[in-house]
């Protein structure tokens, strides 16, 4: 065990972790306006990866043009999900629970995955690194610049979203809708628009997460499930709705996964997220950054 190997692992973990953070942020944006979990988020990630791949390798578009196209297309899918899977079942109760959205968003994820399977098949497709790849040496560790770019891109986007949510008028509308939808409406905010917008933004962010992760993991129509669930786990660990929490929990998960994969067994890599999750929830039920609120009866 050399320190350079540890450093290399650490960096690989940070890279994966930054992508998980993005996926978690995609969950958070929709959660903050609607208080639902969009179970089709993983499929948004998958669509982002595959659409970009098709434009770049199939139609020879430059990567920097393909990315915004993919973001817009997935954002549109996001709006469609809002229209069909969220809006009609708002507040619909099933045996006393407001859980109709669980089924509708899951149903959408089944549809999206199988449509993708018709278009792209089931194979794992290799994806060229979007910004090229070479190796640089950092404190004795060989670091792939591709990883560095992915890490930076994910982190920058995550910060931009944080700024969007906390410093802009759009962010204020989202926050108002989140805290009290009716009051927001009385203040003249068109909350249905804000909610549709949140699905669109979430779609765009998920698409980028897919684009960034696919050079590392390959792209396939079935990739959405696991990355989607891990993103959800990160969102929960960070405390639903907390951007800082999502980034930190994402990075922690990325690092833990890589180390578990290399020191225990690669097969245990995917378990780490969920063991970590249950441990966090058992100790702190509202997530690392969630505020504990004593319930008022």
């Amino acid at each position, binding site marked *: 065990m050399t320190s350079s190997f540890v450093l290399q692992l650490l960096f690989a973990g940070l890279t994966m972790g930054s992508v998980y953070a993005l996926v978690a942020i995609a969950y958070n944006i929709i959660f903050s306006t609607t208080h639902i979990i969009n179970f089709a988020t993983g499929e948004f990630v998958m669509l982002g990866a595959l659409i970009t791949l098709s434009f770049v390798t199939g139609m020879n578009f430059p990567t920097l043009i393909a990315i915004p196209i993919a973001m817009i297309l997935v954002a549109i899918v996001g709006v469609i999900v809002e229209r069909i899977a969220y809006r009609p079942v708002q507040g*619909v109760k099933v045996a006393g629970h407001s859980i109709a959205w669980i089924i509708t968003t899951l149903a959408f994820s089944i549809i999206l995955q199988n449509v993708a399977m*018709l278009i792209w098949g089931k194979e794992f497709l290799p994806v060229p690194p979007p910004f090229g790849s070479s190796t640089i040496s950092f404190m004795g560790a060989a670091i792939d610049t591709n990883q560095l770019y992915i890490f930076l891109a994910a982190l920058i986007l995550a910060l931009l979203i944080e700024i969007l949510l906390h410093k802009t008028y759009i962010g204020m509308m989202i926050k108002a809708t989140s805290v009290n939808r009716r009051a927001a409406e009385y203040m003249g905010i068109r909350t249905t628009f804000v909610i549709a917008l949140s699905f669109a933004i979430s779609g765009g962010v998920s698409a980028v997460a897919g684009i960034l992760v696919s050079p590392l993991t390959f792209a396939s129509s079935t990739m959405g499930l696991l990355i989607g669930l891990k993103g959800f786990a990160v969102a929960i660990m960070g405390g639903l709705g907390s951007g800082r929490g999502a980034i930190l929990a994402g990075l922690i998960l990325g690092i833990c996964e890589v180390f578990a994969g290399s020191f225990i067994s690669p097969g245990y890599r995917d378990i780490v997220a969920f063991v970590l*999750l249950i441990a966090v929830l058992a100790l702190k039920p509202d997530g690392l950054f969630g505020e504990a609120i004593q319930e008022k009866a």
Partner: protein
Amino acid sequence: MNPSMIKKGTLAVFMLGIALFPLFSTNDYYIHMAQMIGITVIVTQGLNLLSGYAGQISLGHAGIYAIGAYAAAIVTTNYELPFLAGLAASIVCSAIVGLLIGVPALRVKGHYLAMVTIGAGIIIEKLMHEGGEFTGGFAGINGVTSPEMFGFSLTSTGLYYMIIISMVLITLLLWNLTRTRPGRAFLALRDSETAAEAMGISRYRYKLIAFVLSSVITGIGGNMYAHTNNYVSPDSFTPHVSIFLLVMVILGGLGTVIGPIIGTVLLYLLPELLKDFDQYHLIIYGAILLISIIVLPGGIASLLPKAYRPKEHLINEEELMNMGLEPYEPGLRERTENQENVILRVCGLTKRFSGVVANDGVTMSVERGTIHALIGPNGSGKTTCLHSISGLYQFDEGDVLFEGQSIASLKLHEKIRSGMARTFQHAQIFKELTVLENVMIGEHSLRKTGFVSGALLLPHVLKEEKESQKEALRILEWFGMKPYAFAKAGDLPYGYQKILEIVRAMAAKPKLLILDEPAAGLTNTEIEQLEEILLKLRKAGITILLVEHDMRLIMKVSDAITVLDSGRVIAEGTPAEIQNNPQVIQAYLGERKAG
């Protein structure tokens, strides 16, 4: 033909159909499919108990299904032990795993609970992958034999009957369970955890039992899966399977006894019908799910008119309404030795919320047989004080004595057994249940039916249920609410919901009744009725501790008043004394400014 005959006829045809099915179908494919449907119904019934009745949505049930299947495969194939040993292993292992998932799940709700169950499902699936020779890794375990019992080997048709009989038995036991006391406790927790606890139902105990029971049933399904398919592999228990299981229950009708059966049969037959569409079939499948939940959120069971559905309770409305009822007298729980004049003594009670002192050394005593009002301006700490007394909050300093004994360490659900019952500021009723069932849950702490006797619907259980129904109806009559006995509680006007809370609390025969703003949201006529009720209860010997803002009501009914301001007691006395107390006037109206 009346609905009950049609119901019985349909049931008879259905039972005959599944009994004779193997005689008509010699095709192994269809027999196998029928076996799988039977197994899946067992699993979805288990899931329905947890998610539909106890209100704990599980998105990881495939994991528990896998535990049952692998336990059977490992014990009977790797260790070559008999079938029954495998069955025991399936039951024990799934119970343990259910408990392991249940413990962290107790701490979380909603989305967090969904994630815990998803996580548990994935962890189990991956452990099957990584189990090496023990679980057979990716390939799983092959060559699981058909069940052998007492010298018989059950193959295709025999196995079919074993599965179908188990399915019918499990469905029947669960149906019984959900219609008796323990099942009502689950439903109460599902609708309002706080109110259920206030009625003496331990949230921890019942939720853990729900997890374990649901897991055991699912594990039995898993056991049969292994013996039916003769192999197990991780691919059969992916997160997708968990989702499909939940979808079956919701599509059929969550929280109904026939829902899981309808949903499972449909979702098994649907792919068969869509076979011609091959590659499109999952897309169509998804679309059907999407549309059906939008159009029919209550599931297919909700399409049936109520009279044609299996009854979800043991109540015979007509018989009950026409029954002669002896008049009810509000009674107390068995008398204790302690006949001290002061029933409740609060000594120096202090409660802080991260720095904010909500109650600061509150001291007061409530005398037996009186109506004692606790008043004060908004934010003066009245409700906090009630929550601390009733066990909803843990207070930081001081003590609460009930009939001379400290009850500070008792939890909310334990308080009712010592003889105090309470209502809430915002009526916390069990909205999905009938008014009568709400009151029957109030009797929870006085009744005895347990899980085993309830599931078997033993004669004494039936007797106790009838008594409980009668008692509930008598109490409702006394409060003038008998006409609403069979209405859904959530459909009552708000004023009646608040009265219902008092009725429910009275069903527990408390010595001390704690009411948190009973008049809030009531019309003037309703307040007059409330006043009458309070006076009648006092006459019957019930002590009442009342938090209220309606001064007219308080001045009319109270024997003693304690005034709180900023968490401190600022005055105590009779209504007349309080009305003229300058400090109280200042607290309510603010300082008189000169000029």
